[in-house]
């Protein structure tokens, strides 16, 4: 404290600090370094280098000790993370174990996290759809949240910008609910999916089945080769890390790109504790960081700060950044910090069988599947619930072998499986309504292993979600029936929120500082040199997957931040 060392301060001073190196932080790092800013990227987890740190990327199925099943001791020690479908023997290394970062479930919430360089971009499912004006002006139309301060036109060029670099495959479908992007060739359909698409098109003019838009390089462009990435090889084990860079991750794309500028300092094992607010200067001056190995606290300083710790952790950092000026969390004049958190409703699914197209089957594997964009409450409020849902859809051919015998007969039957019929499946992706009662807060007494207050999560489904589940089940059943699918089965997993891994809000954007935290540039209304561009900034959640929008918002905010900095505005 006393003999504060000026040199040390200079040594720890950068033009910009980025907190987090996941999908959004990677983009912040790339954009800020690309514009010449000396940028410090602080990442709480360990370093994960492209290819060399993907230990299971070339592991053959038979080389997994337990054939990818989790050991009992791992399951028992990790009841939360074990619920995530992508957590298995081959990916254990990329997920946060329950004990590593405890939190308080005021209501049941399965918080799925990846703490490492690359964050969750390593394990994500790579679905990337643009949001449309129906999403951005939705809250203003039906009043379920505050108005977004931006519209589709504000962000469209930034979607194009990030799509070209990341590499997004898809078909130009010309739908108003799902704007087209800068696409690489789409993945291939199978015959039953095509059949379903045609049946749906024949019956409903407002419902569409399209090929999913996914962050896979189906046809590399020069910009992808420059990143050292190559064409996707259809291994479909992406969540273990892809040595080809076939899908977009921070590790294969934005972070090495930022490193190449020579302007990035990446500091893993650095848990950001809080943002430092200087009352005299009226601005944030830096961050406090706990070294995860030594538990020592260090301060780093910069002109601008990008907070990209993923939605819930960005809330946590702001809530923990208190000062005389901001006793309830940085920038929290409105009192809405931590409130209006929302997520996606992935509870329901519908599956069935189909006995047509028996003379054809599929060959190879596809890391993507078709998608049904939202069709409810689009042009007007027509249903007894607010907003709508999108759905995933896919078909495949089953094969089975009679396992009732033993001995040579059994062996024969196992090695000569009979082709069964087709199976089809769908899962819902519903928009949930941001509510004040869905909030995040800090616990008054319990601390995490770094001495930081534990996050208290109080998020739940409501009646709107239940109605939506029911409608989804009914409508998909109707569409499946129309397509001649048999044995239709609906399910509702009643899983807790969280497993959708699309948590958003708490630091929402808005026009009015009295009801929102951020302005249209994702800049804190009250602290102009702090930007929050991950899921925390989302005013509402749309039915689309969110990450592409985080990328676009981040690139846009970085562009603004650097211009504003040069004009002396921040």
């Amino acid at each position, binding site marked *: 404290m006393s003999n504060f060392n000026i040199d040390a301060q200079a040594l720890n001073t950068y033009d910009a600090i980025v907190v987090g190196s996941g999908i959004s932080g990677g983009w912040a790092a790339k954009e800020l370094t690309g514009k010449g800013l000396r940028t410090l990227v602080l990442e709480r987890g360990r370093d994960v280098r492209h290819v060399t740190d993907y230990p299971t990327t070339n592991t053959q*199925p038979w080389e997994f000790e337990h054939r990818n099943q989790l050991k009992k001791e791992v399951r028992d020690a990790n009841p939360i993370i074990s619920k995530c479908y992508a957590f298995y023997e081959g990916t254990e290394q990329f997920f946060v174990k329950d004990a590593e970062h405890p939190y308080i479930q005021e209501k049941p919430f399965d918080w799925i996290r990846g703490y490492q360089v690359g964050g969750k971009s390593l394990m994500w499912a790579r679905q990337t759809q643009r949001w449309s004006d129906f999403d951005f002006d939705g809250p203003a139309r039906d009043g379920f949240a505050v108005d977004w301060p931006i519209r589709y036109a504000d962000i469209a060029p930034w979607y194009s910008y990030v799509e070209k670099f990341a590499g997004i495959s898809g078909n130009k479908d010309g739908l108003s609910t799902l704007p087209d992007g800068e696409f690489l060739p789409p993945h291939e359909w199978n015959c039953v999916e095509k059949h379903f698409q045609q049946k749906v098109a024949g019956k409903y003019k407002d419902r569409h089945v399209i090929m999913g838009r996914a962050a896979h390089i189906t046809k590399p462009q020069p910009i992808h080769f420059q990143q050292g990435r190559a064409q996707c090889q259809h291994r479909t084990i992406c969540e273990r890390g892809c040595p080809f860079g076939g899908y977009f991750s921070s590790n294969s794309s934005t972070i090495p790109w930022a490193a190449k500028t020579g302007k990035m300092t990446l500091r893993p094992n650095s848990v950001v504790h809080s943002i430092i607010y200087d009352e005299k200067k009226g601005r944030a001056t830096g961050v406090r960081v706990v070294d995860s190995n030594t538990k020592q606290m260090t301060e780093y300083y910069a002109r601008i700060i990008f907070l990209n710790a993923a939605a819930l952790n960005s809330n946590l950092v702001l809530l923990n950044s208190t000062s005389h000026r901001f006793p309830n969390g940085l920038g929290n004049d409105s009192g809405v910090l931590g409130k209006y958190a929302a997520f996606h409703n992935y509870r329901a699914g519908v599956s069935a069988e189909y006995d047509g197209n028996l003379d054809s089957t599929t060959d190879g594997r596809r890391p993507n599947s078709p998608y049904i964009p939202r069709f409810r409450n689009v042009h007007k409020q027509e249903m007894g619930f607010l907003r709508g849902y999108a759905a995933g859809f896919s078909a495949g051919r089953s094969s089975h072998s009679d396992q009732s015998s033993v001995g040579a007969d059994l062996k024969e039957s196992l090695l000569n499986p009979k082709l069964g019929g087709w199976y089809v499946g769908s899962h819902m992706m519903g928009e949930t309504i941001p509510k004040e009662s869905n909030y995040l807060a800090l616990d008054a007494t319990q601390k995490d292993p770094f001495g930081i207050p534990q996050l208290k999560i109080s998020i739940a489904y409501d009646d709107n979600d239940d109605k939506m589940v029911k409608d989804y089940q009914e409508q998909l059943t109707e569409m499946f029936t129309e397509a001649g699918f048999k044995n239709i089965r609906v399910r509702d997993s009643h899983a807790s929120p969280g497993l959708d891994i699309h948590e958003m809000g708490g630091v929402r954007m808005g026009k009015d500082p009295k009801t929102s935290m951020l302005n249209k540039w994702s800049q804190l209304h009250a602290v102009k040199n702090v930007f929050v561009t991950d899921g925390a900034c989302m005013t509402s959640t749309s039915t689309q997957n969110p990450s592409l929008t985080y990328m676009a918002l981040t690139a846009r905010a970085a562009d603004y931040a650097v211009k504003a900095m040069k004009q002396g505005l921040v």
Partner: protein
Amino acid sequence: MAGAVGGLISLPAWANGWTTETVRSSQQLLSSGQAELLAELVETIIPVTDTPGAKALNVHKFVQKMVADCYDKSTQENLQKGLDSLDGLAQKSYSKSFAAGDTAQRTALLTQLAKSTDTAQKDFYSLVKNLTIRGYMSSEYVMTNLTHYQFIPGHYYGCVPVQAKATSQPK
């Protein structure tokens, strides 16, 4: 090391996907007698024909490892108990140990287990059978030589004519 089982003699070259390293169990679940019996059991379920059977592919070690590492205590005990009672059943049915029985005798015994009204016995058998099938089908030998698994397919074709034979493509 649980490796002592049979000394890993003459592991064929194609079976080396399971090294001593990967078949090592975190806990020694079975006695050597139980382990040998398990080997006979899996071999009865999937025997050698013109291709190797479950035993040569070390499926018994896989079964043991899975039960030791991935299952709860009661399932582990049921595996031990089931193996212990198997020889007794063999003695009762054809007055020899299970290992000494011929194929028909062993098979008859397994059929009896499958139909057993004793749930512990039935569970024991279905556990071993399911894990044997899983271990066999996901062994390197079967995946590379018999079911032609492609690690890197490089493509997805959505509508190809049905061939004579279906191939499984797990991850």
